[in-house]
């Protein structure tokens, strides 16, 4: 586990950046998460997560062209790095492994009682 440390929110952000491939910047990531996961995301929380992910080397950022729309402010686009890709895959693998180890009985039992 020690190799790729990812918080739950960080994982979602990382995945979303992947999904939005090439179009991932603050607002689009925020809206996308809000829409798909039906949860509120504050600019502050998102920004902290992005910053941490960049420090861990899972993301890189690049300044986009400025438009008149955002008060002349440029967008900062994020893309996955190879390490970021590995981290997502690792996280997914761990989850699948864990899921597969659940005894069938536990899942069945749930059905019975339900």
């Amino acid at each position, binding site marked *: 586990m020690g190799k790729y440390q990812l918080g739950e929110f960080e994982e979602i952000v990382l995945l979303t950046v992947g999904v939005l491939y090439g179009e991932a910047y*603050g607002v689009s990531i925020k809206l996308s998460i809000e829409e798909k996961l039906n949860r509120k995301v504050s600019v502050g929380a998102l*920004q902290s997560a992005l910053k941490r992910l960049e420090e861990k080397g899972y993301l890189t950022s690049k300044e986009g062209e400025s438009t008149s729309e955002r008060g002349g402010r440029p967008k900062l686009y994020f893309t996955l790095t190879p390490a970021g890709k590995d981290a997502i895959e690792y996280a997914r693998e761990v989850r699948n492994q864990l899921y597969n180890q659940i005894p069938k009985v536990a899942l069945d039992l749930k059905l019975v009682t339900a």
Partner: protein
Amino acid sequence: MSHSSAQPPKLVLRFFKWFCDPGIHRYLEGDLLELFEANSQQKGVKKAQWVFVWEVIRLFRPGIIKNFEGTQKLNYYGMFKNYFKVSMRNILRNKTFSALNVTGLGVGIASCLLIMIYVHNELSYDTYNAKYDRTFRILHNFGSDVEIPADGLLPASELQVWGNAPIAQALKDYFPEVEHVFRFTTSNSFLLEYNGRRFQEEGIAFGDSTFYQIFDWKWIAGNPAVALTRPNTIIISQSVAEKYFGDENPIGKVMLADSQEDYEVTGVYEIPPNSHFDFNALVSMKTFIGYRPIIFESWGYVDFYTYFTVGDNVDIKTMEARIPDFLSNTDNDQEAYTIGFEPLADAYLYSEARRQPGPTGNEDNIYIFISVAAFVLLIACINFMNLSTARSMERAKEVAIRKTIGSGRGSLIFQFLVESQVLTFLSAVIGVLLFWISHPQLEILVDKRLPLDWLLTAGNLAIGMSLVLLLGLVAGVYPAFVLSKFKAVKVLKGAFKNSKDGIWLRRSLVIVQYALSIVLIVGTAVVFDQLQYLRQFDKGFDNEQMLVIDYGWDGKVQRKLEAVKAELGQHSAVESIAASRATPGDFFPNGGTAVKDKNGEWIWTSPGVYEIDEDFIPTYGMEMVTGRHYSSDHPGDSAYSMILNEAAAREFGYTNPLDIIGKDFMQWGREGKVIGVVKDFNYVSLHQGVEPLALRYSTRWSTTKLSLRLKSDNYTQTLTELENIWMTLAPHRPFIAQFSNDNFNRQYETDARFGNVFSIFSGLAIFVACLGLFGLTIYSTTQRQKEIGVRKVLGASMQSLVTMLSKDFIKLFLIAMVFALPVAWYFMNTWLEGFAYRIDMSWQVFAIAAVGTLVISLLTMSFKTVSAALANPVESLRDE
């Protein structure tokens, strides 16, 4: 896209720019603006702005906040934390000294708060009225020997508030500036009855229907605009409403007054506690006009208080200038009658006019209270300074180490200031708690409601906080300078054992404390001496064991007054019995009275009027200077005779009372001869000298009270028996009786209250001073522990040790006395000037105060000195 007009809050943007890491600021701001744009289109600009603010607030987190340049700020924070930690450790380590300081300052702060709320209440009188600034009242002068100046304006002290009825309408007709006029009469007591509930109700006046146009009383039920427009209507205060009607709606209900008149309740009101007059109920003036229409045209009949409002920007001075013209345009028939105007703002605290409609405040008392509050705080601050500097040795090492490590003097000063701030804030918390606990007690003590709400406004809280900061600064700044001054090298070498520094200042501060304490003790002693003197003063009449039965203007009792008197007089405990309109201490009217002078000219004056029957003067043991008192042997007395007091005789120009006997008089439609002069007696409080008084022979219809001189071994039983007799004579009226003494002394209630408040706060101030003294004693005895041990081993007795330890303070005490006694004498002399009859301040008072202070301080010190002197010398001399 078109540029939308919606803008996010500029200030918030700037705030964001200020704290945001400049590396990412541009992008984040872009994101925020984009979201704002989208939100304002979807949810509206208002909502979008709130979301924007909320987002920015949540961006205020590590990772986004920029690193503030340099290391200064971070260091400040660290040092701050350290200062707090060291302060707390110090406070906890020296529990005794911290407790002394915190208690002293806490008591000081609580006293200040209590006095502040009291003073604020005094200053807030009548300010609840929206037209406060343009409300005035009429002051009157009814013919007296005062020379009226050419401009017709007399000083307020020569005028009285109580006046006649017709002036109100005349004023409104003549002055276009006057908007509204409102009159009310003196309060009377009525027997009110509703649905079997029957009580004698004090404080009921007649009033004009215009009250609501001038005074903003709290209105609870009914319509104020029409409440008093009809005859036989009454508006009642909330407490009266609750008493008679409980949960019922009183509006439209009919109350029976004095068993004969029906009054319809048309309103329920509440006059705020900070009003300079108050009624339990107000009956419409139309009712009164119906009873006695003539007095509403009489310029000489005095029973009304008149208030009026003027338009905006009216200069009252120009109105005053027109008073002579105004009066000459009325049908006024009174000689030497003139008026003045007084602003409502002066009515409670600053009015010098006589015959006020309610109790008035005293400006001097306010200053005295404020000074006492300041004294308590000052004494507490001195405690703090003395204890901190005295114990500076204990901190010397800490200071030296800090300096060695590189602390500058400035930061050391700052550290000690933080420490005093922590302590004062702790004290403030305790002070507020003490205030909270004692506030209801203060209300009982001053017999006033002191609402807390004004204290709890944001502005006042902010002021309070800054005052606490200031207090911490004042108390801490000197110790901070002293403590930060130590030379590190000296201290660490160990050559620095004892500080003579500041010992003179410390001594001077102790002298100040002593002096303040002595002033306060002298003050307390003088106040109580004076109050005692007032109570025991020979008033010129005897009202001991005098029972006064009050039957109001009850016609049923008046009708058979002679029978009632005879029946009650037969009881074995009743020595004598008299009927009158007023008894000493009660309210009484003034009346236009004329007596012919030596040349046969009529002299008009307006003395007080007592209406008395033939038994009044003997029953009260009053002395006739000359002539005789009323007697049933002279049937003509009831129509043709008059008795005056010495002051009245003098006012009519007769220095020798003998000469006025047999002179002609006129008063209230009665003419005849003066038959006697009674020796001056103090029928009002001893704040004033004896004023002229006419003792008019009463008819049964002008009496309201019976005075019974009792002689009994068992007053409870006598009272029950008298009540039983009363109930057979007048079953419809409750037996309302009180001892005349109690009634008379009620005039001194304000003085007594002042005395109580003053002595309690003086006591607190002295208590705080004792705390400080105790602290210093602890310190000095600890310092001399070894010396005491050595002396003891060499054979010193306990007494000599205690004397040695107390000697220093006694010297300071003597110096303090030299300063304090003249100051105390001066202040108390000023205070005594408010009394027409006052004590001479004897040297005994000062001696008692001085000895008292000395004894208190020796006792305080003895808690420590005795135990120090008793301690086993082995303990202090052993050195391992």
